[in-house]
Protein backbone atom coordinates (compact mmCIF):
# COMPACT_ATOMS: atom_id res chain seq x y z
CA UNK A 1 0.00 0.00 0.00
CA UNK A 2 1.82 3.10 -1.17
CA UNK A 3 1.27 6.55 0.31
CA UNK A 4 0.53 8.12 -3.06
CA UNK A 5 -2.75 6.25 -3.08
CA UNK A 6 -3.79 7.69 0.23
CA UNK A 7 -2.76 11.21 -0.61
CA UNK A 8 -5.07 11.19 -3.55
CA UNK A 9 -7.82 9.26 -1.81
CA UNK A 10 -11.03 9.22 -3.72
CA UNK A 11 -13.16 6.40 -4.97
CA UNK A 12 -11.03 5.18 -7.79
CA UNK A 13 -8.10 4.62 -5.47
CA UNK A 14 -10.28 3.47 -2.60
CA UNK A 15 -11.08 0.34 -4.52
CA UNK A 16 -7.46 -0.41 -5.05
CA UNK A 17 -6.60 0.14 -1.39
CA UNK A 18 -9.50 -1.85 0.02
CA UNK A 19 -10.50 -4.45 -2.54
CA UNK A 20 -13.40 -5.74 -0.42
CA UNK A 21 -14.90 -2.36 0.50
CA UNK A 22 -17.84 -1.28 -1.66
CA UNK A 23 -18.00 2.22 -3.22
CA UNK A 24 -20.47 3.72 -0.82
CA UNK A 25 -18.14 3.46 2.17
CA UNK A 26 -15.47 6.03 2.83
CA UNK A 27 -12.98 3.37 3.74
CA UNK A 28 -12.39 0.00 5.33
CA UNK A 29 -12.91 1.34 8.82
CA UNK A 30 -16.34 2.72 8.11
CA UNK A 31 -17.19 -0.45 6.21
CA UNK A 32 -16.21 -2.54 9.20
CA UNK A 33 -17.92 -0.36 11.77
CA UNK A 34 -21.24 -0.22 9.94
CA UNK A 35 -21.20 -3.97 9.62
CA UNK A 36 -20.35 -4.35 13.26
CA UNK A 37 -23.16 -2.09 14.42
CA UNK A 38 -25.57 -4.13 12.34
CA UNK A 39 -24.35 -7.34 13.95
CA UNK A 40 -24.71 -5.90 17.43
CA UNK A 41 -28.28 -4.85 16.67
CA UNK A 42 -28.98 -8.36 15.38
CA UNK A 43 -27.57 -9.80 18.60
CA UNK A 44 -29.87 -7.49 20.57
CA UNK A 45 -32.89 -8.97 18.78
CA UNK A 46 -31.51 -12.44 19.48
CA UNK A 47 -31.31 -11.70 23.20
CA UNK A 48 -34.89 -10.44 23.17
CA UNK A 49 -35.92 -13.50 21.14
CA UNK A 50 -34.57 -15.83 23.81
CA UNK A 51 -35.97 -13.60 26.55
CA UNK A 52 -39.48 -14.93 25.85
CA UNK A 53 -38.35 -18.43 26.76
CA UNK A 54 -36.35 -17.20 29.73
CA UNK A 55 -39.52 -15.48 30.93
CA UNK A 56 -41.57 -18.67 30.57
CA UNK A 57 -38.91 -20.51 32.53
CA UNK A 58 -38.75 -17.91 35.31
CA UNK A 59 -42.50 -17.76 35.82
CA UNK A 60 -42.94 -21.51 35.74
CA UNK A 61 -40.10 -22.02 38.16
CA UNK A 62 -41.45 -19.37 40.52
CA UNK A 63 -44.92 -20.97 40.42
CA UNK A 64 -43.91 -24.62 40.54
CA UNK A 65 -40.48 -25.11 42.12
CA UNK A 66 -41.36 -28.74 42.90
CA UNK A 67 -41.70 -29.55 39.20
CA UNK A 68 -38.13 -28.41 38.62
CA UNK A 69 -36.89 -30.51 41.51
CA UNK A 70 -38.89 -33.41 40.09
CA UNK A 71 -37.49 -32.87 36.58
CA UNK A 72 -33.85 -32.66 37.58
CA UNK A 73 -33.78 -36.40 38.23
CA UNK A 74 -34.35 -36.91 34.51
CA UNK A 75 -31.51 -34.65 33.36
CA UNK A 76 -27.91 -35.59 32.98
CA UNK A 77 -25.53 -33.01 34.43
CA UNK A 78 -22.55 -34.84 32.97
CA UNK A 79 -23.57 -34.38 29.34
CA UNK A 80 -24.63 -30.80 30.03
CA UNK A 81 -21.19 -30.06 31.48
CA UNK A 82 -19.46 -31.74 28.54
CA UNK A 83 -21.42 -29.57 26.15
CA UNK A 84 -20.58 -26.45 28.15
CA UNK A 85 -16.86 -27.19 27.91
CA UNK A 86 -17.15 -28.00 24.20
CA UNK A 87 -18.91 -24.71 23.48
CA UNK A 88 -16.40 -22.72 25.55
CA UNK A 89 -13.57 -24.34 23.59
CA UNK A 90 -15.25 -23.47 20.29
CA UNK A 91 -15.73 -19.90 21.49
CA UNK A 92 -12.03 -19.74 22.22
CA UNK A 93 -11.08 -21.01 18.77
CA UNK A 94 -13.55 -18.52 17.26
CA UNK A 95 -11.88 -15.66 19.14
CA UNK A 96 -8.52 -16.99 18.03
CA UNK A 97 -9.75 -17.14 14.43
CA UNK A 98 -10.55 -13.41 14.62
CA UNK A 99 -6.98 -12.80 15.75
CA UNK A 100 -5.69 -14.94 12.86
CA UNK A 101 -7.81 -13.00 10.38
CA UNK A 102 -6.51 -9.67 11.69
CA UNK A 103 -2.92 -10.83 11.49
CA UNK A 104 -3.43 -12.48 8.10
CA UNK A 105 -2.47 -15.95 9.39
CA UNK A 106 -4.43 -17.84 6.75
CA UNK A 107 -3.52 -21.42 7.64
CA UNK A 108 -4.11 -20.96 11.37
CA UNK A 109 -7.38 -19.22 10.57
CA UNK A 110 -8.62 -22.22 8.59
CA UNK A 111 -7.48 -24.63 11.29
CA UNK A 112 -9.33 -22.65 13.95
CA UNK A 113 -12.50 -22.48 11.88
CA UNK A 114 -12.37 -26.23 11.35
CA UNK A 115 -11.89 -26.83 15.10
CA UNK A 116 -14.83 -24.53 15.81
CA UNK A 117 -17.01 -26.49 13.38
CA UNK A 118 -15.82 -29.77 14.90
CA UNK A 119 -16.73 -28.57 18.41
CA UNK A 120 -20.16 -27.50 17.17
CA UNK A 121 -20.67 -30.96 15.66
CA UNK A 122 -19.65 -32.61 18.93
CA UNK A 123 -22.18 -30.40 20.69
CA UNK A 124 -24.91 -31.49 18.29
CA UNK A 125 -23.99 -35.15 18.68
CA UNK A 126 -24.23 -34.91 22.46
CA UNK A 127 -27.60 -33.19 22.02
CA UNK A 128 -28.70 -36.03 19.77
CA UNK A 129 -27.76 -38.60 22.42
CA UNK A 130 -29.58 -36.62 25.10
CA UNK A 131 -32.69 -36.12 23.01
CA UNK A 132 -32.92 -39.76 21.98
CA UNK A 133 -32.74 -40.78 25.65
CA UNK A 134 -35.54 -38.36 26.44
CA UNK A 135 -37.67 -39.56 23.54
CA UNK A 136 -37.08 -43.14 24.53
CA UNK A 137 -38.24 -42.43 28.08
CA UNK A 138 -41.38 -40.66 26.86
CA UNK A 139 -40.12 -37.28 28.12
CA UNK A 140 -41.66 -35.29 25.30
CA UNK A 141 -43.11 -31.81 25.15
CA UNK A 142 -46.74 -30.88 25.71
CA UNK A 143 -49.38 -33.58 25.09
CA UNK A 144 -46.82 -36.14 23.94
CA UNK A 145 -45.43 -36.25 27.46
CA UNK A 146 -45.78 -39.81 28.79
CA UNK A 147 -42.85 -40.81 30.98
CA UNK A 148 -42.01 -44.48 30.96
CA UNK A 149 -40.49 -44.26 34.44
CA UNK A 150 -41.92 -42.29 37.30
CA UNK A 151 -39.43 -40.15 39.16
CA UNK A 152 -39.02 -42.60 42.09
CA UNK A 153 -38.14 -45.29 39.56
CA UNK A 154 -35.61 -43.11 37.78
CA UNK A 155 -31.94 -43.97 38.04
CA UNK A 156 -30.85 -40.69 39.62
CA UNK A 157 -33.59 -40.71 42.23
CA UNK A 158 -32.91 -44.29 43.27
CA UNK A 159 -29.20 -43.50 43.46
CA UNK A 160 -29.64 -40.31 45.48
CA UNK A 161 -32.56 -41.24 47.73
CA UNK A 162 -32.72 -45.05 47.93
CA UNK A 163 -34.92 -45.07 51.03
CA UNK A 164 -37.45 -42.68 49.51
CA UNK A 165 -37.53 -44.70 46.31
CA UNK A 166 -38.33 -47.87 48.27
CA UNK A 167 -41.03 -46.13 50.26
CA UNK A 168 -42.56 -44.74 47.06
CA UNK A 169 -42.59 -48.18 45.48
CA UNK A 170 -44.34 -49.54 48.59
CA UNK A 171 -47.03 -46.85 48.54
CA UNK A 172 -47.57 -47.24 44.81
CA UNK A 173 -47.95 -50.99 45.21
CA UNK A 174 -50.50 -50.32 47.95
CA UNK A 175 -52.41 -47.89 45.76
CA UNK A 176 -52.46 -50.33 42.89
CA UNK A 177 -53.57 -53.19 45.10
CA UNK A 178 -56.42 -51.07 46.44
CA UNK A 179 -57.38 -50.01 42.95
CA UNK A 180 -57.38 -53.61 41.81
CA UNK A 181 -59.45 -54.66 44.80
CA UNK A 182 -61.94 -51.86 44.23
CA UNK A 183 -62.28 -52.82 40.60
CA UNK A 184 -61.80 -49.24 39.53
CA UNK A 185 -59.04 -47.84 37.39
CA UNK A 186 -56.68 -45.51 39.12
CA UNK A 187 -57.92 -42.61 37.05
CA UNK A 188 -61.45 -42.92 38.34
CA UNK A 189 -60.41 -42.19 41.86
CA UNK A 190 -59.31 -38.68 41.01
CA UNK A 191 -61.98 -36.56 42.54
CA UNK A 192 -60.15 -33.91 44.47
CA UNK A 193 -63.18 -31.63 44.69
CA UNK A 194 -65.10 -34.15 46.77
CA UNK A 195 -62.16 -34.54 49.07
CA UNK A 196 -61.55 -38.10 47.98
CA UNK A 197 -58.12 -39.51 47.42
CA UNK A 198 -56.38 -38.15 44.41
CA UNK A 199 -54.77 -41.32 43.27
CA UNK A 200 -53.36 -39.86 40.16
CA UNK A 201 -51.89 -42.74 38.27
CA UNK A 202 -48.47 -43.79 38.01
CA UNK A 203 -48.00 -44.66 34.31
CA UNK A 204 -51.54 -44.84 33.08
CA UNK A 205 -52.27 -47.85 30.98
CA UNK A 206 -49.62 -49.97 32.66
CA UNK A 207 -51.30 -49.62 36.01
CA UNK A 208 -53.09 -52.96 35.91
CA UNK A 209 -50.14 -55.13 34.90
CA UNK A 210 -47.86 -53.22 37.23
CA UNK A 211 -50.22 -53.87 40.11
CA UNK A 212 -50.44 -57.51 39.26
CA UNK A 213 -46.66 -57.78 39.10
CA UNK A 214 -46.22 -56.07 42.42
CA UNK A 215 -48.88 -58.21 44.01
CA UNK A 216 -47.41 -61.41 42.63
CA UNK A 217 -43.83 -60.65 43.54
CA UNK A 218 -44.38 -59.06 46.93
CA UNK A 219 -46.61 -61.15 49.16
CA UNK A 220 -46.19 -58.63 51.98
CA UNK A 221 -47.82 -55.91 49.94
CA UNK A 222 -50.53 -58.28 48.85
CA UNK A 223 -51.27 -59.20 52.42
CA UNK A 224 -51.28 -55.62 53.56
CA UNK A 225 -53.67 -54.56 50.83
CA UNK A 226 -56.01 -57.37 51.60
CA UNK A 227 -56.06 -56.69 55.30
CA UNK A 228 -59.66 -56.14 56.16
CA UNK A 229 -59.12 -53.15 58.40
CA UNK A 230 -57.06 -51.28 55.86
CA UNK A 231 -59.29 -51.84 52.90
CA UNK A 232 -62.22 -50.44 54.82
CA UNK A 233 -60.45 -47.11 55.25
CA UNK A 234 -61.31 -44.33 52.87
CA UNK A 235 -58.58 -43.91 50.28
CA UNK A 236 -57.37 -40.56 51.53
CA UNK A 237 -57.30 -41.69 55.15
CA UNK A 238 -55.30 -44.75 54.16
CA UNK A 239 -52.84 -42.67 52.15
CA UNK A 240 -52.43 -40.18 54.96
CA UNK A 241 -51.66 -42.95 57.42
CA UNK A 242 -49.11 -44.37 54.95
CA UNK A 243 -47.45 -41.00 54.50
CA UNK A 244 -47.32 -40.44 58.26
CA UNK A 245 -45.42 -43.70 58.62
CA UNK A 246 -42.60 -42.41 56.41
CA UNK A 247 -39.37 -41.25 58.00
CA UNK A 248 -38.29 -37.68 57.16
CA UNK A 249 -35.54 -39.12 55.01
CA UNK A 250 -38.10 -41.01 52.94
CA UNK A 251 -40.65 -38.26 52.90
CA UNK A 252 -38.65 -35.12 52.16
CA UNK A 253 -37.41 -35.90 48.63
CA UNK A 254 -40.89 -37.05 47.64
CA UNK A 255 -42.42 -33.87 49.02
CA UNK A 256 -39.82 -31.64 47.36
CA UNK A 257 -40.49 -33.31 44.03
CA UNK A 258 -44.21 -32.68 44.52
CA UNK A 259 -44.98 -36.40 44.54
CA UNK A 260 -46.54 -36.17 47.99
CA UNK A 261 -48.67 -33.09 47.92
CA UNK A 262 -48.38 -31.16 51.16
CA UNK A 263 -51.64 -30.88 53.14
CA UNK A 264 -51.56 -27.10 52.74
CA UNK A 265 -51.80 -27.40 48.95
CA UNK A 266 -55.05 -29.34 48.85
CA UNK A 267 -56.21 -32.91 49.40
CA UNK A 268 -53.43 -35.38 49.96
CA UNK A 269 -52.11 -37.00 46.83
CA UNK A 270 -49.33 -39.30 45.79
CA UNK A 271 -48.56 -38.80 42.15
CA UNK A 272 -46.39 -37.17 39.55
CA UNK A 273 -46.72 -33.39 40.07
CA UNK A 274 -49.51 -31.84 38.06
CA UNK A 275 -48.46 -30.32 34.71
CA UNK A 276 -44.97 -31.75 35.10
CA UNK A 277 -44.81 -32.10 31.33
CA UNK A 278 -44.63 -28.34 30.91
CA UNK A 279 -41.07 -28.54 32.17
CA UNK A 280 -40.15 -30.63 29.15
CA UNK A 281 -41.96 -28.25 26.83
CA UNK A 282 -39.76 -25.48 28.18
CA UNK A 283 -36.69 -27.70 28.12
CA UNK A 284 -37.15 -28.71 24.47
CA UNK A 285 -37.99 -25.22 23.30
CA UNK A 286 -35.00 -23.65 25.03
CA UNK A 287 -32.44 -26.27 24.06
CA UNK A 288 -34.06 -26.74 20.65
CA UNK A 289 -33.95 -23.08 19.74
CA UNK A 290 -30.37 -22.97 20.95
CA UNK A 291 -29.60 -26.09 18.91
CA UNK A 292 -31.00 -24.44 15.78
CA UNK A 293 -28.64 -21.54 16.45
CA UNK A 294 -25.71 -23.94 16.71
CA UNK A 295 -26.73 -25.55 13.41
CA UNK A 296 -26.94 -22.12 11.76
CA UNK A 297 -23.55 -21.32 13.27
CA UNK A 298 -22.05 -24.43 11.65
CA UNK A 299 -23.39 -23.22 8.31
CA UNK A 300 -21.92 -19.75 8.84
CA UNK A 301 -18.50 -21.16 9.74
CA UNK A 302 -18.50 -23.33 6.63
CA UNK A 303 -19.28 -20.21 4.65
CA UNK A 304 -16.38 -18.41 6.37
CA UNK A 305 -14.10 -21.31 5.47
CA UNK A 306 -14.98 -20.89 1.79
CA UNK A 307 -14.44 -17.13 2.01
CA UNK A 308 -11.03 -17.72 3.58
CA UNK A 309 -10.14 -19.78 0.50
CA UNK A 310 -11.12 -17.00 -1.89
CA UNK A 311 -10.09 -13.84 -0.06
CA UNK A 312 -7.13 -12.58 1.90
CA UNK A 313 -8.00 -11.42 5.40
CA UNK A 314 -5.86 -8.84 7.11
CA UNK A 315 -6.00 -5.94 9.55
CA UNK A 316 -8.25 -3.90 7.24
CA UNK A 317 -10.52 -6.79 6.27
CA UNK A 318 -11.60 -9.28 8.89
CA UNK A 319 -15.25 -8.26 9.34
CA UNK A 320 -16.87 -11.53 8.20
CA UNK A 321 -14.82 -13.60 10.66
CA UNK A 322 -15.35 -11.10 13.47
CA UNK A 323 -19.13 -10.98 12.93
CA UNK A 324 -19.52 -14.75 12.71
CA UNK A 325 -17.46 -15.04 15.89
CA UNK A 326 -19.72 -12.49 17.62
CA UNK A 327 -22.76 -14.56 16.70
CA UNK A 328 -20.97 -17.68 17.88
CA UNK A 329 -20.08 -16.09 21.22
CA UNK A 330 -23.73 -15.15 21.69
CA UNK A 331 -24.73 -18.78 21.18
CA UNK A 332 -22.13 -19.69 23.81
CA UNK A 333 -23.44 -16.91 26.08
CA UNK A 334 -26.97 -18.33 25.97
CA UNK A 335 -25.73 -21.82 26.72
CA UNK A 336 -23.77 -20.46 29.70
CA UNK A 337 -27.15 -19.54 31.20
CA UNK A 338 -29.10 -22.58 29.97
CA UNK A 339 -26.65 -24.97 31.58
CA UNK A 340 -27.25 -23.97 35.23
CA UNK A 341 -30.94 -23.33 34.56
CA UNK A 342 -31.71 -26.75 33.12
CA UNK A 343 -28.96 -29.10 34.27
CA UNK A 344 -27.89 -27.81 37.69
CA UNK A 345 -31.25 -27.68 39.48
CA UNK A 346 -30.70 -28.69 43.06
Amino acid at each position, binding site marked *: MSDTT*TEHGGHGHGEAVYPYTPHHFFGAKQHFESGKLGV*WLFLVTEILFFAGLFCAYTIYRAQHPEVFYWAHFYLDTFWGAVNTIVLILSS*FTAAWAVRNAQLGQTTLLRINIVITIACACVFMCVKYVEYSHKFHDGLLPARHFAPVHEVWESEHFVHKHPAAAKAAARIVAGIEARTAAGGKTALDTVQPRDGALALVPVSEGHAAEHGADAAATDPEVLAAAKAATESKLADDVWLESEVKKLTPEERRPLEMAGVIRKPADGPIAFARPAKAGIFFSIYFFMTGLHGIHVAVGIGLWIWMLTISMRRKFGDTYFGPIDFTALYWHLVDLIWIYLFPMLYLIH
Partner: protein
Amino acid sequence: MSEEETRPEPQDIPETPVDGSPILSPSERPTAVGGDDALAAIEASVASEPKITESKAPAAFAATVLGDTLPSAVREALSEAKGSHGHGHGGGHAAAHGDEHFAHTMPMMMLLGVLSALIILTVLTVAVTSVDLGSQGNFIVAMIIATIKAALVMGYFMHLVWDSKFNVFAFLSSFLFVLLFLSMALLDRGEYQPTIDRFEADQKTAK
Protein backbone atom coordinates in the same frame (compact mmCIF):
# COMPACT_ATOMS: atom_id res chain seq x y z
CA MET B 1 -12.59 14.30 -1.53
CA SER B 2 -9.81 12.90 0.63
CA GLU B 3 -10.46 10.41 3.34
CA GLU B 4 -9.33 12.44 6.32
CA GLU B 5 -11.85 15.17 5.55
CA THR B 6 -14.66 12.80 6.28
CA ARG B 7 -13.19 11.55 9.48
CA PRO B 8 -13.56 14.10 12.29
CA GLU B 9 -16.16 12.12 14.21
CA PRO B 10 -15.97 12.60 17.97
CA GLN B 11 -14.75 9.11 18.80
CA ASP B 12 -11.93 9.31 16.32
CA ILE B 13 -10.39 12.46 17.74
CA PRO B 14 -7.89 10.81 20.09
CA GLU B 15 -6.37 8.60 17.47
CA THR B 16 -5.22 11.24 15.01
CA PRO B 17 -2.51 12.72 17.25
CA VAL B 18 -1.53 9.24 18.36
CA ASP B 19 -1.07 8.02 14.87
CA GLY B 20 0.97 11.08 14.07
CA SER B 21 3.04 10.70 17.20
CA PRO B 22 6.38 11.68 15.70
CA ILE B 23 5.03 15.19 15.04
CA LEU B 24 3.80 15.67 18.59
CA SER B 25 6.09 16.12 21.55
CA PRO B 26 5.98 13.06 23.80
CA SER B 27 4.75 15.15 26.74
CA GLU B 28 1.50 15.87 24.97
CA ARG B 29 0.31 12.27 25.03
CA PRO B 30 2.69 10.43 27.32
CA THR B 31 0.39 7.56 28.28
CA ALA B 32 -0.66 6.89 24.77
CA VAL B 33 2.87 6.74 23.45
CA GLY B 34 4.09 4.65 26.39
CA GLY B 35 1.14 2.28 26.13
CA ASP B 36 1.70 1.95 22.45
CA ASP B 37 5.08 0.42 23.00
CA ALA B 38 3.86 -1.51 26.00
CA LEU B 39 1.15 -3.26 24.08
CA ALA B 40 3.52 -3.90 21.27
CA ALA B 41 5.96 -5.39 23.77
CA ILE B 42 3.31 -7.64 25.27
CA GLU B 43 2.30 -8.68 21.82
CA ALA B 44 5.86 -9.45 20.92
CA SER B 45 6.57 -11.48 24.05
CA VAL B 46 3.36 -13.43 23.69
CA ALA B 47 3.20 -14.28 20.06
CA SER B 48 6.64 -13.23 18.93
CA GLU B 49 5.30 -11.67 15.77
CA PRO B 50 8.33 -10.94 13.64
CA LYS B 51 7.17 -7.49 12.52
CA ILE B 52 7.15 -6.01 16.03
CA THR B 53 10.65 -5.00 16.86
CA GLU B 54 10.52 -2.12 19.34
CA SER B 55 9.99 -2.46 23.06
CA LYS B 56 10.77 -0.17 25.94
CA ALA B 57 10.64 -2.07 29.18
CA PRO B 58 9.85 0.79 31.64
CA ALA B 59 7.08 2.17 29.48
CA ALA B 60 5.78 -1.33 28.95
CA PHE B 61 5.68 -1.95 32.67
CA ALA B 62 3.91 1.35 33.39
CA ALA B 63 1.29 0.75 30.77
CA THR B 64 0.71 -2.81 31.93
CA VAL B 65 0.12 -1.57 35.46
CA LEU B 66 -1.99 1.37 34.34
CA GLY B 67 -3.67 -0.51 31.54
CA ASP B 68 -6.78 -1.51 33.40
CA THR B 69 -7.26 1.77 35.22
CA LEU B 70 -7.16 3.97 32.16
CA PRO B 71 -10.40 5.41 30.83
CA SER B 72 -11.59 3.45 27.85
CA ALA B 73 -11.18 6.40 25.49
CA VAL B 74 -7.47 6.30 26.21
CA ARG B 75 -7.48 2.53 25.87
CA GLU B 76 -9.12 2.84 22.49
CA ALA B 77 -6.46 5.30 21.50
CA LEU B 78 -3.84 2.86 22.72
CA SER B 79 -5.26 0.05 20.69
CA GLU B 80 -5.41 2.28 17.64
CA ALA B 81 -1.79 3.19 18.14
CA LYS B 82 -0.86 -0.43 18.59
CA GLY B 83 -2.55 -1.27 15.33
CA SER B 84 -0.33 1.16 13.44
CA HIS B 85 2.81 -0.19 15.10
CA GLY B 86 1.93 -3.82 14.69
CA HIS B 87 1.82 -3.30 10.99
CA GLY B 88 5.26 -1.86 10.95
CA HIS B 89 4.41 1.53 9.43
CA GLY B 90 6.94 4.21 10.22
CA GLY B 91 4.83 6.85 11.98
CA GLY B 92 4.53 9.57 9.37
CA HIS B 93 2.27 7.87 6.87
CA ALA B 94 -0.03 6.41 9.47
CA ALA B 95 -1.64 9.79 10.11
CA ALA B 96 -2.41 10.22 6.45
CA HIS B 97 -4.47 7.06 6.35
CA GLY B 98 -5.22 6.12 9.95
CA ASP B 99 -8.35 4.66 8.49
CA GLU B 100 -6.70 1.36 7.77
CA HIS B 101 -5.67 0.61 11.35
CA PHE B 102 -8.73 -0.22 13.32
CA ALA B 103 -8.16 -3.88 14.12
CA HIS B 104 -7.89 -4.61 17.81
CA THR B 105 -5.97 -7.84 18.07
CA MET B 106 -6.41 -9.79 21.28
CA PRO B 107 -3.13 -10.96 22.84
CA MET B 108 -2.89 -14.74 22.83
CA MET B 109 -2.24 -14.81 26.59
CA MET B 110 -5.49 -13.01 27.25
CA LEU B 111 -7.50 -15.44 25.13
CA LEU B 112 -5.92 -18.39 26.90
CA GLY B 113 -6.49 -16.77 30.29
CA VAL B 114 -10.19 -16.24 29.54
CA LEU B 115 -10.50 -19.82 28.28
CA SER B 116 -9.01 -21.28 31.45
CA ALA B 117 -11.11 -18.97 33.65
CA LEU B 118 -14.26 -20.14 31.87
CA ILE B 119 -13.36 -23.80 32.27
CA ILE B 120 -12.48 -23.35 35.95
CA LEU B 121 -15.80 -21.57 36.55
CA THR B 122 -17.70 -24.37 34.77
CA VAL B 123 -16.06 -26.98 36.99
CA LEU B 124 -16.77 -24.79 40.01
CA THR B 125 -20.44 -24.37 39.18
CA VAL B 126 -20.86 -28.13 38.83
CA ALA B 127 -18.98 -28.73 42.08
CA VAL B 128 -21.18 -26.27 43.97
CA THR B 129 -24.30 -28.38 43.29
CA SER B 130 -23.03 -31.00 45.73
CA VAL B 131 -23.16 -28.43 48.54
CA ASP B 132 -26.60 -27.63 49.92
CA LEU B 133 -27.02 -23.85 50.16
CA GLY B 134 -30.72 -23.70 50.94
CA SER B 135 -33.70 -23.71 48.64
CA GLN B 136 -32.64 -20.77 46.47
CA GLY B 137 -28.98 -20.54 47.48
CA ASN B 138 -27.66 -22.97 44.89
CA PHE B 139 -29.61 -21.34 42.10
CA ILE B 140 -28.35 -17.87 43.03
CA VAL B 141 -24.73 -19.04 43.22
CA ALA B 142 -25.10 -20.82 39.85
CA MET B 143 -26.53 -17.68 38.25
CA ILE B 144 -23.78 -15.48 39.72
CA ILE B 145 -21.13 -17.81 38.28
CA ALA B 146 -22.97 -17.83 34.94
CA THR B 147 -23.00 -14.02 34.94
CA ILE B 148 -19.26 -13.87 35.63
CA LYS B 149 -18.71 -16.28 32.72
CA ALA B 150 -21.02 -14.23 30.50
CA ALA B 151 -19.11 -11.05 31.42
CA LEU B 152 -15.81 -12.73 30.47
CA VAL B 153 -17.20 -13.88 27.14
CA MET B 154 -18.73 -10.48 26.37
CA GLY B 155 -15.79 -8.41 27.55
CA TYR B 156 -12.93 -10.40 26.04
CA PHE B 157 -14.11 -12.91 23.44
CA MET B 158 -16.59 -10.40 22.01
CA HIS B 159 -14.01 -7.66 22.83
CA LEU B 160 -16.71 -5.33 24.13
CA VAL B 161 -14.11 -3.83 26.48
CA TRP B 162 -12.47 -2.20 23.46
CA ASP B 163 -15.56 -1.71 21.36
CA SER B 164 -17.19 1.64 20.71
CA LYS B 165 -19.37 3.00 23.51
CA PHE B 166 -22.38 2.95 21.28
CA ASN B 167 -22.14 -0.79 20.58
CA VAL B 168 -21.67 -1.51 24.27
CA PHE B 169 -24.68 0.63 25.07
CA ALA B 170 -26.83 -1.01 22.38
CA PHE B 171 -25.97 -4.52 23.50
CA LEU B 172 -26.25 -3.94 27.23
CA SER B 173 -29.55 -2.12 26.80
CA SER B 174 -31.07 -5.40 25.59
CA PHE B 175 -30.38 -6.87 29.03
CA LEU B 176 -32.14 -3.92 30.59
CA PHE B 177 -35.22 -4.73 28.54
CA VAL B 178 -35.01 -8.41 29.42
CA LEU B 179 -34.86 -7.44 33.08
CA LEU B 180 -37.88 -5.20 32.66
CA PHE B 181 -39.72 -7.97 30.83
CA LEU B 182 -38.99 -10.57 33.50
CA SER B 183 -39.75 -8.35 36.47
CA MET B 184 -43.05 -7.10 35.04
CA ALA B 185 -44.10 -10.64 34.18
CA LEU B 186 -43.14 -11.87 37.64
CA LEU B 187 -45.14 -9.14 39.36
CA ASP B 188 -48.49 -10.61 38.40
CA ARG B 189 -47.55 -14.24 37.93
CA GLY B 190 -50.17 -15.38 40.47
CA GLU B 191 -52.86 -13.14 39.04
CA TYR B 192 -54.54 -15.72 36.82
CA GLN B 193 -54.25 -18.74 39.12
CA PRO B 194 -57.91 -18.54 40.31
CA THR B 195 -59.09 -18.41 36.68
CA ILE B 196 -56.93 -21.42 35.82
CA ASP B 197 -58.20 -23.33 38.86
CA ARG B 198 -61.82 -22.55 37.99
CA PHE B 199 -61.26 -23.63 34.39
CA GLU B 200 -59.72 -26.90 35.46
CA ALA B 201 -62.53 -27.59 37.92
CA ASP B 202 -65.05 -26.99 35.15
CA GLN B 203 -63.17 -29.34 32.85
CA LYS B 204 -63.36 -32.08 35.48
CA THR B 205 -67.07 -31.56 36.08
CA ALA B 206 -67.68 -31.69 32.36
CA LYS B 207 -66.02 -35.11 32.17
